[in-house]
């Protein structure tokens, strides 16, 4: 297998396990607020390492899986749409390796807030029940916390698989299409 194929395989494994762990572990931890956004931080990590298209595609996949798998009951496509946006946005960061931990935390927090607001807005538009406002804070806090541990691990493992000649440059899958 080529390094690129390895990368795709690792991304698929990361997304699959994040989606399962999110429902089985993260959502059942006795914490206040909404379930922790484990899939969300993995998508951010893939976006940072892989670029706009990779981030968007993985966000779409993770979101669709979350929407379709039990026990989700919200309108199909909401998580897919929101995570797609986040993956694409994370992919636009030019120099993800230059991000200081504080900057990374800020970025994760901002994206988590965005996810929460947009998904609640969509739920409201579609007539689904909306969560209390205080959950926005919990979601941002929780996601930022696990993000600072998970995102570096995701980006590191994907960069390890970068083709040798390109590892120096700011390599992104999207740029290969140029």
């Amino acid at each position, binding site marked *: 297998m080529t390094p690129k194929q390895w990368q795709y395989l690792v991304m698929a494994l990361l997304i699959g396990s994040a989606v399962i762990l999110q429902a089985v572990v993260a959502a*059942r931890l*006795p914490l206040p607020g909404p379930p922790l956004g484990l899939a969300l931080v993995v998508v951010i990590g893939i976006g940072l390492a892989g670029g706009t298209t990779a981030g*968007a*595609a993985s966000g779409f996949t993770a*979101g669709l899986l979350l929407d379709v798998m*039990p026990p*989700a009951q919200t309108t199909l496509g909401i998580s897919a749409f929101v995570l*797609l946006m986040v993956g694409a946005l994370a992919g636009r960061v030019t120099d993800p390796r230059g991000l200081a931990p504080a900057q990374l935390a800020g970025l994760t927090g901002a994206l988590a807030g965005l996810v929460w607001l947009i998904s609640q807005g969509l739920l409201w538009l579609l007539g689904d029940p909306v969560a209390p406002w205080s959950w926005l804070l919990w979601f941002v806090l929780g996601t930022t916390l696990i993000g600072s541990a998970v995102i570096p691990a995701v980006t590191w493992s994907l960069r390890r698989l970068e083709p040798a000649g390109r590892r120096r440059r700011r390599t992104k899958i999207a740029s290969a299409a140029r």
Partner: protein
Amino acid sequence: MAVTTRVDSKQQRRPAGKPSRRSRVPIPVLILGLVALSLMLLDLQGGVTGYLRQAGMTVGGPMQSWANSALGVIPTLPDQRVNTEELQRDLTISQQREVELQLQVDQLREQLDRRAVDPAGTELETISAAVVAAGPLLSRTTVTVAAGRNDGVDLDTAVLAGNALVGRVSEVGRTSSTVQLLTDPDSGVGVRLQGSRELALAVGGTDQQVLDLQLFDPLVDVELGQRVITVGSPDGRPFPAGLVVGDVTQINGVVGAPDRAVVIEPKTDLSALDEVLLVLPEGDGAREIRQQP
């Protein structure tokens, strides 16, 4: 600055006035976005998306069960310690309740010249199932349980835990199903206040942790700690009569005030469910039914 968009840096390199060949958003991203949006619209209509959900249930349910048993020790460890104490307390409470209920049933039989409404004394046929996953992204009010159509579970099956009602089955797969908890904003149960026997509706509250009690008669007296039990649906589906829902823990406002809010706390902690009982339909000989004591 480390955080700038790549498009910006590209535009700086491009000679001014030359039109951009690529749109700001890559085409695949646009397509996926449109797919997600059309999924939402399709789901509003219903139909096709049902198959997608069924497929998700068929594939995802067993995977969650597997992951839960592989990792099960990690999330449930802190709960287990609490559980033994809670079980002890539950046992004494339910013993008291049994006596209390039996008295009530007897009184009712005498007072009203009709059949007792409360068949809590009758045995419900149930199967036990492990809770393997919880509402993953936007809410905490649904859980996956590792029992499905193959085990005799049907849509609208009542779900119990620790002698109290916790919800109903809202989606059934072959070996797993989704349970909508009482705290779900879409959930509503017809209930009765124990003691005064007043009727009300217990609906999921906005904070997804407690229930709001909507009394049919605004002039009814409600006391703190008053127990709330199910009225029961026709034929006991989805909800059998006489099951504990929870206790009144908060009353805001005075009797008769239009904005009086009565809050019920579910008897079982719905955010830490490990094992639940699913009430099987009665007299269903076609299915193999395991009875639990």
